């Protein structure tokens, strides 16, 4: 149990101690030693694009330069692509390490031959922290529900919106956006399930949050029905079922699952 607590603490401490903090969820922002990097410092959009691409692909070790150029600047010819990369790489290094002396090795953007990678050991990133918290929550859901709850709350707090919303139409950002959104939904559903009996109104709030992300998430409706029922609010539980039924019909042309229908029967059956 102490090990899990320490793990949670270490993620929270990293946020306080890291010299670089990056927010990618809901908006894109960087803090260097607690100071926000101003839009003036960013200059060309290519600089932000390169850093965001490296963040989205941080787990793919060593990205080939040509591969990066092809994915980010596929609309320009090879020469312009090379130029963009050179300028953007210089810009990213300048943003992350403004006082680094020329001809010294970069601390965060690791170059090996023609491959590049973002070294995240000393960088705190919301997406990485969210991943870690969801993993802790999932791993301890059965044996240590109190710690799982804390971890899920931390994860939910971090999900301020879509991953890199300003790159919504770039295909290189889609995979990470989808993955993180599902992780956030998972955290919301698991946490609301944990709280249904103990704190039904909080479970309702969490399921509403899940439905803001995906209005067709049937598990969220079912937990919300249970929570309202637990609270003794039968009309709201039935109303939630009706909403679920309506949206599933509108969006998929299907009915709620038998599990959801049975719950409705149970709720209607109690006078």
């Amino acid at each position, binding site marked *: 149990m102490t090990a899990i607590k320490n793990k949670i603490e270490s993620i929270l401490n990293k946020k306080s101690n890291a010299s670089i903090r990056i927010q990618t969820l809901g908006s894109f922002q960087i803090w260097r030693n607690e100071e926000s990097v101003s839009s003036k410092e960013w200059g060309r959009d290519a600089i932000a694009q390169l850093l965001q691409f490296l963040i989205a692909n941080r787990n793919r070790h060593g990205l080939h330069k040509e591969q990066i150029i092809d994915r980010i600047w*596929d*609309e320009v010819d090879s020469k312009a692509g090379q130029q963009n990369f050179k300028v953007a790489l210089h810009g990213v290094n300048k943003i992350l390490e403004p006082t680094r002396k020329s001809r010294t090795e970069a601390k965060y953007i690791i170059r090996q031959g023609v491959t590049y990678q973002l070294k995240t050991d000393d960088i705190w990133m919301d997406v990485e922290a969210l991943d870690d918290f969801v993993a802790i929550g999932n791993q301890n859901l059965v044996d240590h529900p109190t710690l799982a709850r804390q971890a899920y709350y931390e994860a939910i707090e971090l999900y301020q919106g879509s991953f890199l919303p300003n790159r919504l*139409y770039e*295909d290189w950002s*889609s*995979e990470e956006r*989808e993955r993180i959104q599902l992780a956030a939904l998972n955290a919301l559903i698991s946490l609301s399930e944990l709280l249904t009996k103990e704190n039904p109104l909080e479970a309702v709030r969490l399921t509403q949050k899940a439905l803001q992300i995906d209005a067709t998430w049937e598990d969220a409706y079912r937990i919300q029905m249970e929570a309202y029922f637990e609270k003794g609010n039968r009309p709201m539980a039935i109303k939630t079922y009706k909403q679920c039924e309506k949206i599933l019909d509108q*969006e*998929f042309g299907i009915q709620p699952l038998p599990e959801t229908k049975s719950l409705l029967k149970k709720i209607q059956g109690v006078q």
Partner: protein
Amino acid sequence: MANKKEETASFMLRFTQKIFENESGEPQIQWRGNIRHVQGGDEKRFSEFDDVVTFIQSHLQDLTIQAMEDKTPEEQKGILSKSFDLWKRMAAEAPKMVMDTIKDPKKQVAQIQDQIQDQLSHVKDEIGQKLDIDSWLNSSKSDSKLILEKLEKLSGDISKLNKKVEKLSKKK
């Protein structure tokens, strides 16, 4: 000439699997999902794969039309017809492949694995190690477990029924 961006259409496809029992207690499976055209942001939810095919087809058609604005009407007609033929061929095969994968994921993944394996051994024998794709099989394992449980239950029920029939026969 059309630049590279106009030659690309990416689609993000999400499937959500629901396994449940119907009123007769038989296990059922349902797939729900949504598809998003990344460059345009359009999104559609679906429970039938045909809707996915139509969605993709409509966006690919737009892409083709945009890319041949500078062509003559005859050329446009020819290209569009060829594009449609290509899509028809792909659309005929793709849902089958997806449905086969849903019905028997292990077999399909194993086939893909074998295909990759064949290609790898052609390219270079020394890198032809078996790819570890066990992690891809999680959902199919749970499917198999559920089906096995149902089969075991069914087998037990049949056995009980047989005994009853035998008893009745003896009474007669």
